[in-house]
């Protein structure tokens, strides 16, 4: 309350200064235009890296000495599990930014991430079950790593259900942000669960501090698949964010102009 003019002034100064471009990108219209050509690019990267990763994983990498061929599930299981954790943090980050600064695009991006994150969490669990059966002799066990990942899936589903249940857009974004931020405590718990608890799940395949515990070709295949999954996530999140942008901005002039252009690519992705 000491200087009432401080807040609007700093915002205006930031807009005029060097960060102008950044805020331009944050405007729905600019975001829509830029992601329009980013989406096909992401698909090319995703499909290219997936083909390369699967080729290395199935045809170059050797059979695992102890697990036999079932280990080949790793090329989808580990990237999916990484993505499910990472996307949750990214979702919580943008939801928080949207809440704190009332940034429209940030809240849209947070919403757009949730289904993709849930999909990856589901895949991590599904492929984990299909890997656990031949390796541990059971599809499922109430173990720390598995249980916390299941909670992650429920957090995603809870977020989606919550934001869809509240009609008021700003309230819905805020409630979602609160759930996303509180739930993000689960992510480090998943990550460290294999160290903190005695668990059936094997330890980290790759860590920051030690050399990878796997053959070089296996590692290459897994990293190629990880890049593919990142590109896939960018592509689908951008696609969904573009859809939500149109839903929310349908009464704005730029959307009106976009949809009134006859055969001008308005119906494309």
């Amino acid at each position, binding site marked *: 309350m000491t200087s009432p003019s401080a807040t609007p002034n700093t915002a205006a100064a930031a807009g005029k200064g060097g960060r102008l471009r950044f805020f331009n990108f944050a405007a729905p219209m600019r975001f829509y235009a830029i992601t329009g050509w980013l989406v096909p690019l992401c698909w090319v990267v995703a499909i290219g890296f997936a083909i390369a990763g699967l080729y290395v994983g*199935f*045809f170059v*990498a*050797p*059979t695992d000495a102890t697990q*036999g*061929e*079932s280990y*080949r*599930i790793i090329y*989808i*299981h580990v990237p*999916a599990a990484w993505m499910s954790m990472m996307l949750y943090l990214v979702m919580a980050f943008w939801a928080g930014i949207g809440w704190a600064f009332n940034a429209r695009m940030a809240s849209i991006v947070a919403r757009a991430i949730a*289904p*993709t994150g849930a*999909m990856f969490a*589901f*895949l991590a669990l*599904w*492929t984990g079950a*299909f*890997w656990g*059966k*031949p390796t541990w002799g059971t599809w499922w066990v109430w173990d720390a790593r598995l249980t916390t990942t299941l909670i992650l899936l429920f957090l995603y589903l809870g977020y989606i259900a919550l934001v869809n249940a509240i009609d008021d857009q700003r309230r819905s974004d805020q409630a979602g942000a609160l759930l996303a931020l509180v739930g993000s405590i689960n992510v480090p718990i998943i990550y460290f669960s294999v160290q903190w608890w005695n668990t059936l799940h094997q330890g980290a395949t790759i860590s920051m501090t030690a050399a990878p515990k796997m053959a070089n070709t296996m590692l290459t295949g897994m990293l190629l698949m990880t890049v593919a999954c990142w590109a*896939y996530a960018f*592509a*689908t999140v951008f*696609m*969904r964010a*573009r*859809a*939500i942008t*149109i*839903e929310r901005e*349908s*009464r704005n002039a730029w*959307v*009106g102009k*976009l*949809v*009134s252009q006859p055969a001008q690519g*308005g*119906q494309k*992705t």
Partner: protein
Amino acid sequence: MNWGSASEFFHMGGKGLFVWGSYAVSMLVMVAEPLLARRRHQQALRQAALFNDEGRKPRFS
């Protein structure tokens, strides 16, 4: 090369069900998700176009 023949490849050393069960479902959901996103986008554009047309029409006709 790890596999002598195609059937050896699909057999996966007796673990075919688990390996292909993982990859088939992954493929399925990773194809379905972008298709759903695209449908949502197209629906949003149609909705916006409808609204846009209504705005131009005379109100009581």
